[in-house]
């Protein structure tokens, strides 16, 4: 087989596609009725939805998994990257607060970060790109 044919098998994920998918899902969740979680529930905050898309845009990389977006009872958006036991989940608040849970490569961490803090986003992006890193590991050769 010619080298050019092998190159045709290389798939580079479209980062903008991952962000577009997050934006579409956020928009869908934003249109949920106020009682989506039962009587007296909270409508999804458009600011939280916009912040969730900003978060995905800020931490997504070509090798990253797609983010799952879901609504929370208090009207925020929960952004989640899960690969088996590896996961990063972030509840995004309208004021830019991020409540974060990270379980990747031996790290278990839970705490608060800020959307507008570039160092925080850099740290988070590092761990988001580590979710499912086993996809890129080459199996050891057997004897």
């Amino acid at each position: 087989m010619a080298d050019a044919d092998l190159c045709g098998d290389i798939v580079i994920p479209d980062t903008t596609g991952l962000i577009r998918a997050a934006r579409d899902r956020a928009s869908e969740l934003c249109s949920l009725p106020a009682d989506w979680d039962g009587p007296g529930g909270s409508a999804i905050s458009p600011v939280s939805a916009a912040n969730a898309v900003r978060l995905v845009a800020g931490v997504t990389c070509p090798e990253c998994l797609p983010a799952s977006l879901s609504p929370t009872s208090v009207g925020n958006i929960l952004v989640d990257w899960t690969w088996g036991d590896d996961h990063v989940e972030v509840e995004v608040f309208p004021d830019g607060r991020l409540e974060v849970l990270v379980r990747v490569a031996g790290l278990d961490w839970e705490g608060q970060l800020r959307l507008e803090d570039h160092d925080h986003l850099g740290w988070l992006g590092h761990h988001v790109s580590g979710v499912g890193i086993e996809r890129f590991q080459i199996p050891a050769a057997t004897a």
Partner: protein
Amino acid sequence: MSVADEDVFYRRVRWAKRTTDQRSGQIRPSSDSFRDSTDPPSPMSGLLRSVVLASDRSIDSLVPGDGGDALVEFGVSALRRHGFEVVASPEEDEPAHAHLVGDKEKRSTRRLLADLARWTATTVDET
């Protein structure tokens, strides 16, 4: 009324609150599905399998067919192994009602419950 280790605790969750495990492709309930009630404050509610069956109802009947809900289940013994307690709390219109008692303030605790949960029944809608 004591709850046996062999019993099953069911929890209704909103189908919109779901996430996908990208390794297996499986859809899972999000951690936000497992909060205590706030208005009024009370431990997370659920239903006991033994009482549902004793009242001649099917498990499928626990999920309204409006397309917005799904049902997940936990083994009572598994919940107890992780430090929770299941307490029967029958109500006038729901004799199988029960509470899952235990701190769920930490995100990691709610995530643990999401990982332990197994789907029982779903009624899928578009969101």
